[in-house]
């Protein structure tokens, strides 16, 4: 008996939890303007997210899935993508979406139970949030196939959670993307918990990145709270995919500092000590430490940034709350390019009852 194949999974970290560089940084890491742009976006996410939770708690927003603690992964991925790449999110990767031009008001509109939130004025080809777990993965493979058919140097980027890697669609899409050499980068945001089930109970695999091995594609693990490493790993994976090198699975190790959604209460199943320890590794603080230690940032600038983010968020809240209610007709208007005759009577009925309610 002899070994016929061997595989390694590598881990990348470039900025540790204390804000100290731990390896050689790529070009963007030496450009303070780029670092500050990413830090500002992470901060906007945190302010937006905190406000969303408060809005839900006070009855002004529907159930909401927070992104607290995962901002470095989300913004790092967004910063690495090109504008004409296409994003296939799950439902909490706001940092990537905001970086790509989705509006704060649009995200609030979606979570307030209104389809108009998925209109996406900015990235017109990006997919909306995907609630059925892992089903976005084949969509991304399909878009990647379209880029291949048309000879376009573009990439599809798909998010998935740690729990999502248990789904068939996750494996199927990675396998297809590998077999057909598609420009796809899949990002597993391993935040430790699939609602109440920890990763250790989700799989016997030591890493989620190693799930790439069975698909015959590249797999790498990265500190997902380290925006430098996330962006670096993503830039490499995207460049490889764009140049015909096939897909990559990136596992970003982060932590869900929030409940799963505002309808969840993680204190019922998650040890308090684990949460407290995770707050010590969170992404904003280490980035700020680095920036301040290197003279790129000050307490005054931090206060100004927070105030600016708060103003943006307040404006977005006003915008979504001012949106007139959608018409009953809209249930029918977007079902088909042309509404079949048989549905017109139902539309008329819905219109009648909407007009006479109350």
């Amino acid at each position, binding site marked *: 008996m002899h070994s016929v194949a061997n595989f390694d999974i590598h881990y990348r970290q470039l900025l540790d939890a204390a804000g100290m560089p731990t390896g050689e940084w790529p070009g963007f890491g030496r450009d303070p303007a780029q670092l500050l742009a990413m830090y500002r976006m992470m901060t906007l996410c945190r302010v937006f997210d905190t406000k969303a939770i408060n809005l839900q708690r006070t009855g002004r927003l529907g159930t909401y899935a927070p992104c607290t603690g995962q901002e470095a992964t989300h913004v790092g991925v967004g910063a690495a993508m090109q504008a004409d790449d*296409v994003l*296939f999110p799950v439902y909490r990767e706001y940092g990537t979406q905001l970086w790509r031009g989705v509006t704060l008001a649009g995200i609030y509109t979606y979570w307030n139970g209104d*389809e*108009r939130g*998925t*209109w*996406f004025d900015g990235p*017109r*080809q990006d*997919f*909306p949030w995907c609630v*059925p777990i892992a*089903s976005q*993965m*084949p*969509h*991304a*493979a*399909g*878009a*990647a*196939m*379209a*880029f*291949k*058919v*048309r000879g376009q140097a573009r990439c*599809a980027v798909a998010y998935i959670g740690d729990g999502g890697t248990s789904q*068939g*669609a996750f494996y*199927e*899409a990675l*396998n*297809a993307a590998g*077999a*057909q050499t598609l420009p796809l980068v899949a990002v597993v945001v391993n935040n430790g918990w699939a609602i109440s089930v920890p990763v250790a109970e989700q799989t016997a695999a030591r890493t989620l990145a190693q799930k790439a091995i069975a698909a015959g594609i590249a797999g790498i693990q990265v500190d997902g709270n380290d925006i430098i490493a996330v962006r670096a790993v993503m830039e490499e994976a995207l460049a490889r995919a764009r140049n015909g090198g096939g897909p990559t699975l990136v596992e970003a190790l982060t932590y869900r500092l929030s409940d799963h959604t505002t309808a969840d209460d993680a204190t019922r199943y998650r040890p308090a000590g684990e949460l407290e320890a995770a707050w010590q590794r969170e992404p904003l603080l280490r980035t700020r430490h680095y920036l301040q230690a290197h003279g790129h940032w000050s307490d005054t600038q931090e206060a100004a940034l927070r105030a600016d983010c708060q103003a943006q968020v307040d404006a977005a809240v006003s915008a979504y709350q001012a949106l007139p209610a959608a018409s009953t007709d*809209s*249930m029918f*208007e*977007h*079902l*088909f*390019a042309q509404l*079949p*005759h*048989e*549905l017109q009577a139902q539309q008329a009925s819905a219109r009648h009852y909407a007009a006479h309610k109350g």
Partner: protein
Amino acid sequence: MAKLTLVEAINLALAHALQNDPDVVLMGEDIGRNGGVFRATAGLQQRFGALRVQDSVLAEGVIAGMAVGMAAQGLKPVAEIQFMGFIYPALDQICNHMARMRNRTRGRITLPIVVRMPHGGGIHAPEHHSESLESLLCHHAGLRVLCPSTPARAYGLLLAAIRNPDPVIFLEPTRLYRLARQEVEDDGVAADLDCCHLLREGQDVTVVCWGAATHDVLQAAHALESESIDCEVIDLSSLSPIDHNSILDSVARTGRLVIVHEAARNCGVGAEIAATVAERGLYHLHAPIRRVTGYDTVMPYFRLEHDYIPSVTRIADGIRETVQA
């Protein structure tokens, strides 16, 4: 004009679409090198290349899901599911995404997809290869479901499906693939969607059917002529949406309705037709509506499949009893 079988007419329509629209891409299991297990795509990969006619990996969910991603990029994927009994892994993609994307993005992302698949039994196939599962799909908003019954209609409807800006499920009756030939002109003319077709005019009873059952119904109607029973036969053709108005017009003339389908009766498409005629046409009826369908059993293995599929005799009995009621 060539006389073609139904599967040859499908091949002709696919070739026409590939030739005339660079966005059309075929995908499915064994459709390329092998030309499809029923030969529906024979010769097309050789003609149009492996990127236009793609051999997919063996996963129905990924075929349907990739079609969503491709269509969102402006391609017009025509995906083949090898047999309808294998549709289940694709249903998450078809029902949760294909059918809903236009609506949930308020028209920002639209999906011009056709999902083709063999439908029904009667060809002595193995287990899971003979299913009639149209009800699963007709229940979902945002999908069209078509089922042609002749080569010419298959050609025209498939072109219409491919050119339609929304997802279309295209059911191909396996029993008809090679049953008969018909002159089919390769004129690129798409058939009308959302309407049924009158196969035979009659005064005594309206018989609504689709797919392979249409041929059995026409035989039954012919046999009943000797008993002076004059059947009007409607090929439903579009199973969703249903052209209820045409059915109601016919029932208003004949006063009787029989619905024939191969699928199981419980929650079948026939139930929807019967309910609508009861709601909107009850006072035209001289007799109770009758359904002649597959049984609410598991589709049997092929040794018993002809006991399951409504036979000409069973159909004729159903029509006769309705007319004599």
